[in-house]
């Protein structure tokens, strides 16, 4: 009996659908299959080949919308989604209740020097540092600085220490993605890595005229 063309096409479509939908669940584990990397297989790789340790749980591998779009576009998101997500990040910033942004620059230097916190080898709940010297030049006395981020030497002297500038610096440390969506800089306040006081102390390090960052 000859099959109608419609039936054959529908059968083919169904077969394709089954392969596509069922492919993720039925495919051999991740790496070892022959086809290129579809989403399901990559997700399986992450689930099977990482395990929780210390304070670093598997939830850390789930991406939020910012991480997702920056990953997919290799840090070059289109303008529309970029603006929208930046706005969302800005609205999520918790500003100091007392309206003050300037802490103690000496304490700030300690926060900037300390690169510990949030790894699986750090005790959960322990005080974290900002690790700022990993990426930035800050105080002129510290020669062991990184160059991933711009130099912050003389920042207060160059840009002033007005309340608006203080607020900008505070916001930037709290959540750099509110100002530059795919910035390499971690969201230190948003992630809970640094406390409000620690961020205020960093603002002081960068903007206080007495800070070594700004001395002539």
């Amino acid at each position, binding site marked *: 009996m000859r099959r109608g063309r419609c039936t054959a096409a529908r059968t083919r479509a169904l077969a394709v659908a089954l392969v596509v939908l069922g492919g993720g669940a039925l495919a051999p584990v991740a*790496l070892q299959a022959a086809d290129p*990397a579809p989403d399901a297989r990559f997700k399986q790789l992450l689930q099977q080949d990482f395990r929780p340790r210390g304070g670093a749980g598997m939830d850390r591998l*789930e991406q939020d919308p910012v991480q997702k779009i920056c990953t997919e576009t290799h840090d070059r998101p289109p303008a529309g989604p970029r603006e929208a997500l930046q706005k969302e990040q800005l609205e999520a910033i918790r500003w100091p209740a007392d309206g003050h942004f300037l802490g103690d620059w000496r304490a700030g230097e300690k926060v900037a020097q300390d690169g510990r916190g949030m790894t699986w080898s750090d005790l959960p709940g322990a005080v974290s540092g900002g690790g700022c010297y990993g990426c930035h030049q800050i105080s002129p006395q510290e020669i062991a600085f*990184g160059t991933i981020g711009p130099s912050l030497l003389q920042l207060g002297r160059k840009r002033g220490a007005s309340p608006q500038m203080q607020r900008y610096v505070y916001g930037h440390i709290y959540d750099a993605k509110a100002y530059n969506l795919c910035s390499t800089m971690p969201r230190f306040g948003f992630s809970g890595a640094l406390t409000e006081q620690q961020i205020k102390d960093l603002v002081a390090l960068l903007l206080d005229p007495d800070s070594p960052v700004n001395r002539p």
Partner: protein
Amino acid sequence: MAEVTGARAGAATHKALGVGRAARAIAAAWPWVAAILLWSGADTAMAAGGASDPVDAAIARYHEMLDEGNPAELDEMRGEQLWKTAAGPAHASLEGCDLGRGPGVVKGAYAELPRLFADTGRVQDLESRLITCMTGLQGIPESEIVAKPFSTDSARSDIEALVAYVAGQSRGVTMRVPVHDAKEKGAYALGERLFFYRAGPYDFSCASCHSSNGSRIRLQELPNLSTTAGAQRAYTSWPAYRVSQGLFRSFQWRLYDCFRQQRFPEPVYASDATIALTMFIAANANGAVYNGPGIKR
């Protein structure tokens, strides 16, 4: 009368005491780096990129001083012993192990890993392949091997010594990691995807540090692993002896410690994810001459 031409002071020793004839050699580099940067004054801010040149020169000089007398050679010696000595319940040596160039062929094997292996049907890196051989030929349980794969001061890892030996046997060999079979291509693609995957509380991917040219974290140069030039420089310097740890470290260890600092959960030792990432970086390094285990700060 003999004339002493070389000695090395360890980083920890140097920090602890700061004195001693051997320590001075290393300590000598830092004061003139500081002097140059302080002398540069306010312009250092603008020339942060330019100011990295005297710093880079000082770092390069430190590396030159380290090059002689790499303790990794002692790990190579120990690895060779382990390769040739009968061990495990099967009382067999590893001399029948196929690292991709035929059973027992060690020379040049590291320069062609990771690759697809017909017997396991998997793409494997060196450490994964050593597990295959240690379990298959020697009968050592896998759980025993992966329980503590990285050396500590008190307990040395056998698999790290074997890595040193095998890697050393590719000294002078041009890297030629095969990305021909569909599985090898699949591994490369997955590795690339993992390389760019931003996650965790710090939003870090490998690319966050390793996808630009000329940057460094503190004073550590960050190779651009997404390019041929960067991958060639970086991949050919691993595995390596880490002076600051006083221990020999493999590439699996390097990935493990990177993920730790990325604030990710722990990667499973010699898992497909780590093999995929290794495939991405090693294949990017193809064409470079591998010069055997390196030595680093």
